[in-house]
C-alpha cells in the first residue's frame, strides 16, 4: 500500500447506522476479477436516488466519509474498501466499525478513524450545515481536527498499524521476516491434522 501520513479535505456526511457492505458495494459488482474500477458501484442502489448525499454537488471532491455507528457490518468483501478508495475517499470516520471491514481498511490503506458518538454527531451536523468544513487527520499524531466544527480529538490506531500506514508497508513481506519461525512451527504440527491432498 501507499504511505498515508496526513489526510486533509472536505467530507461527506452519511447519517446512517449499521451501513452494511452489501450497500457499500452490491454483490453484482463482486463478479469482477480486477481490483480497480469499483468506485462506480459505490452505494450503487442508494445513488439511484438523486437526493442521496453522494449525489449532491456541494460534496463533490470530498476525501473523508463521516458516518453513523457499526459501519461496514456484514459481508467480508474487501471490494467495499476498494470502492470507497476508488471513489476518492482516504478515510472513514465513525463511532464504530465492523471488525473485518476495519481490518480490510488497514490492509488496503483506507484509514478507519473511530471517534466518540458525540464527535461524529458534531462533525455530521457541521458538514451538513457547511460542506466546506475541512477535516484534517494526522496519522502520526493520531488526531482529527475540524476547527470549523469545533472538533479536536484523538483516535485509536495501534502502533504497528500506524507504522504500516506511515511507511506504506507490505504486510506479507513483514510476516515473511518470520520465515524461520513458520518453518519451526510447521515441523511440530501434529501429523494427524487434515490435508487436502
Amino acid at each position, binding site marked *: 500500500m501507499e504511505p498515508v501520513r496526513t489526510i486533509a479535505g472536505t467530507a461527506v456526511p452519511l447519517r446512517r447506522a449499521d451501513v452494511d457492505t452489501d450497500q457499500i458495494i452490491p454483490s453484482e459488482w463482486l*463478479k469482477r*476479477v480486477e481490483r480497480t474500477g469499483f468506485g462506480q458501484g459505490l452505494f450503487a442502489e442508494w445513488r439511484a436516488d438523486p437526493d442521496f448525499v453522494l449525489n449532491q454537488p456541494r460534496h463533490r471532491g470530498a476525501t473523508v466519509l463521516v458516518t453513523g455507528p457499526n459501519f461496514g457490518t456484514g459481508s467480508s468483501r474487501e471490494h467495499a*474498501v476498494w470502492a470507497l478508495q476508488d471513489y476518492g475517499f482516504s478515510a472513514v470516520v465513525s463511532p464504530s466499525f465492523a471488525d473485518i471491514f476495519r481490518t480490510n481498511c488497514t490492509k488496503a490503506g483506507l484509514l478507519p478513524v473511530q471517534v466518540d458518538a458525540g464527535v461524529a454527531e458534531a462533525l455530521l451536523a457541521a458538514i451538513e450545515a457547511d460542506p466546506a468544513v475541512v477535516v484534517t487527520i494526522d496519522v502520526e499524531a493520531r488526531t482529527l481536527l475540524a476547527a470549523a466544527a469545533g472538533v479536536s480529538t484523538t483516535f485509536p490506531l495501534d502502533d504497528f498499524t500506524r507504522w504500516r500506514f506511515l511507511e506504506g508497508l507490505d504486510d506479507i513481506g513483514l*510476516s515473511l521476516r518470520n520465515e524461520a519461525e513458520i518453518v519451526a*512451527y510447521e515441523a511440530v504440527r501434529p501429523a494427524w491434522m*487434515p490435508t487436502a491432498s
Partner: protein
Amino acid sequence: MERLASQNVGRQPQTLADKVWASHVVHRAEGEPDLLYIDLHLVHEVTSPQAFDGLRLAGRPVRRPDLTVATMDHNTPTIGLDLPLADPVSAKQIETLAANCAEFGVTLYPMGHANQGIVHVIGPEQGLTQPGMTIVCGDSHTSTHGAFGALAFGIGTSEVEHVLATQTLPQGRAANMAVTIDGDLPAGVTAKDVILALIGRIGTGGGVGHVIEYRGSTIRSLSMEGRMTICNMSIEAGARAGMVAPDDKTFAWLEGRPRAPKGADWDAALDHWRGLATDEGAVFDKEVTVDATTLRPHVSWGTNPSQVVAIDDDVPDPDRIADAGQAESARRALTYMGLRAGTPMRDIPVDTVFIGSCTNSRIEDLRAAAAVVDGRHVSAGMRAMVVPGSMRVKADAEAEGLDRIFTAAGFEWRAAGCSMCLGMNPDQLAPQERCASTSNRNFEGRQGRGGRTHLVSPAVAAATAVAGHFATPEDIR
C-alpha cells in the same frame, strides 16, 4: 495429552478460544499483533482472483496448497449445470478460479463435482473442519466452522493473499464473550430461532471485537447442524468468531469422514480435542444468558438481522423505539420492506420461499422442512425452492426421498450453491418480491434489487410456503 496437561499446571484458567489461539502463535513480539498459523484455508471464486493476481505480481507461490481447498459456490447456477453460464462476467470468474487452482496446485471441487458445494458446508462434510484448528476463508460466514471448536473467521482479499503466501495471519487479540443458553427448547423452536433472538437482543454490533463461545444445556442438546447454524450467524452479531466446545456429539459426527484422522491418529486427535473445552474458572470479558424455554419461532421484519420479532408479534412501531438512530433505521426499514407498524406477522403475505444457504441447507434442515410439507402443497402462486448446501447433501436427500416430497409439494429442487442467499447467480428476487428465507442476511437488495427478505427457520419457511403467509408448522396442522 500428558504433555499438555503438565503444561497446564499453575496456568491461569483459559477459554476454548484462548487455547486454540495460544497453540497457533508462530511469532509474538511486544507492540505487534500475534502471527497465527492457519490450519485450513478455504477458497472460492469471488474473493480470491485479486489475491492470486497479487501472488503472481510478487512471484510468490502458494505456501501450503495441501492446506488449501477451493470450490465454486457464490455465482454458480443451480440449474442447467451442463450449459454454459448465461452471465459472461460470472463465467470469467469461475474460469479464473479453475485456472488459478491449476497454476498454483490447489485442490478444487468445481461445479458439477460430487464434493462441490457451499464452502462452509463442504469443510465439515469432508472432515476437513476439526476441533482446535484455525480456519479462514474470504467469506464472513466462516464462523460456521466454530461449531466444531475451531477458531474460524472470515477475512478480506488482502488477507486471502497473505494466507496463500505465508499460511499465517497477523491478528490482534479478540476478547472473550460467553453466551450461555440453558433449558429445553419449546416445540417448534430451532437453532435458527435461538440465534435470531440473540441478535435481536445484542444487536448487529453486540459481538464486535469478541469471539463468542456458546455454552449451556441448550447448546449441548443441539445437533452439530444446529450448532453450525448458530455459529454461522455469529458474524451477524458482529462477532469475530463463534465457537462451541467439542464433545462426544462432535467426535461421533466427525468419525469416518473422508479427511478425519483414522486409527491411532484418531486416538491422538481425540486426546487433544478432549482438552480444548474452557477451563473451570476461566474469565469472560462479556457474558449474556438466554433462557431457551421462553423462546418462540422468530421472523425478521427489517433490513438487518437484529430487526426480528417472535412470529406471534406485530411489526414494531418505530415511534416506540427509544434510541433515535435505531428508530430512524426502523422507519427506513419499514419503507423498504413495504410494511406497516402494528401488522401481525402472520398476516403478511409471502411471494417466495427459499430454503438453502450456509445457515440452513444441511440434511437436517431439509428433513425438517420436508416433514412439514410432506403430503401438502405450496400455496397458490407461491414460488418455492430448495437449494441443498452441497452435492453430497443433495445426494443424501435424494437417497431418503426428500426431493420427491419437495417436488410433489410444488418446490423446485436445485443443485448446490449459495444461490438466492445473495443473488449473485440467476436465483434472485424481483423488486418488491417478498421472501421467507432460511439464509442469514436481510440487507436491502441482498437477494436481488428491491427484494424483501425475511429470515426464518426451515420449519417456518416450509409452513409459510404452504400457508402463503408467515406460519409455524403448528399453524397448518
